[in-house]
């Protein structure tokens, strides 16, 4: 399955879209399909300071609770309220309306530890 190009990916199945020093984070198509029907997403608060790769929230399907490991560190500047009212938006539009939060990157070089679309494709095709 082809991943959207131009995004970066983590091995925990999050995607990151970088625009200057602002990064938008969500979960991948592979992640939403594996989780199944998503019923709740617990996001960090605006203003919270996140450390890269730390567990900063959860995404819950009907059956299971899974940690969100933030693929980037920095200050949370926006969260997606739409997925609180309609968590299934994450299933329907994981790369669009189902985004999770935005951070102001503490250090723009940290994205070097993430994967390209091609690298991520390889990871999930081996899974």
């Amino acid at each position, binding site marked *: 399955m082809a991943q959207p190009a131009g995004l970066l990916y983590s091995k925990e199945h999050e995607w990151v879209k970088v625009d200057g020093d602002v990064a938008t984070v969500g979960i991948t198509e592979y992640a939403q399909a594996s989780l*199944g*029907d998503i*019923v*709740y997403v*617990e996001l960090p608060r605006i203003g919270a300071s996140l450390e890269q790769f730390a567990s900063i929230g959860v995404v*819950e399907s*009907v*059956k299971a609770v899974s940690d969100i490991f933030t693929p980037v560190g920095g200050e949370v500047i926006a969260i997606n309220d739409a997925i*609180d009212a309609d*968590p299934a938006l994450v299933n329907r539009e994981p790369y669009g309306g189902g985004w999770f939060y935005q951070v102001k990157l503490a250090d723009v070089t940290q994205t070097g530890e993430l994967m390209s679309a091609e690298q991520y494709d390889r990871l999930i095709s081996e899974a």
Partner: protein
Amino acid sequence: MTDASGALRRTALHDAHLVLGARMVPFGGFEMPVQYTSILAEHDAVRKRAGLFDLSHMGQFALYGGDVGAWAETLTINRVGNMKIGQARYNVFTNERGGAHDDVIFYRIGDDEWLLVVNASNAGKMWGIVSAARSGDVRLDNLHGERALIAIQGPRSLEMLQPYVDADLTNLKYYACTPTRVREAREPVLIARTGYTGEDGFELFLSNDEAVGVWDLLLAENRKHGLVPCGLGARDVLRLEAGMPLYGHEMDEEITPLQAGLNWAIKFDKPAFIGKAALEAQRDAGDYARITGVTMEGRAPARAGYAVFAGGARVGEIRSGSWGPSVAKNIATALVAPSAAAEGTPLDVEIRGTHHPARTTALPFYRRPKA
């Protein structure tokens, strides 16, 4: 329970599940479908139309002999001996402390012939218990894994099943059973009007050899009417909404049937059964923790093991929890002190260190509309 090599067992319908795109998980020693498409879509099909379930992982024991009724009554809380042929009855095997070995259904097939269906996860333990307790002319045959069980559940299950069955299903009462001919099966199939979803529905006990033929027939003929295969994920949400206990959650070796709210099934007027004295003492003391429904006020689901508080004090813990699509709220069961068991009691459920408001709710959360 797995075989000596630790490998998971497979039901006769295993290949059919793979063809249907099921996601398979280990459950009760078997590789079982947890979902085919989506738990919520499968749940919705059962509430509105019907769903088809493979429950062949459940333990089936055949019981023979004129003494079965009297014998089983000494091991369980409910009556068995007075069941009529063609009757099914819910029951619980108890330990000396009144705790539950398993919750089960007895089906009386003939004067001297019964089927006992036990939970998959308890099948090994239960076979040990009934074998060790065997007395009189009681004979036992462990059919676990050798016989199949297919359930069709939902408001349209009768019209979907009837065309392929000789027996008149309209006249088969709730918790009744009958052997009958089913198309695609050479041997008679035992059909019971039982289930675990809160909907009308039927369970078909049949040989492994004939399971695929019957499964494929029902699905092929009824797909166009909205029948969908359903996994164990949907089944768990359906039973939770319907307030039905799941062994290991609402009942176990320590949580008694009295605590689980099964007072109606405990026949204290029986002369003796294992655990009777302990259950009487618990009933008379009256101060036991009990299973109640819990409805969350917010979007965060309660999950098994979360702590429950009332008025700032810890009063119990969540035993099962899920999003409840039929009520559009997060629902749960909890084992709580009697002080917190009254309907409407304000509660807090601790979720990842934060208290989330909830209320004690009478079970069930969902009752099917009267036909």
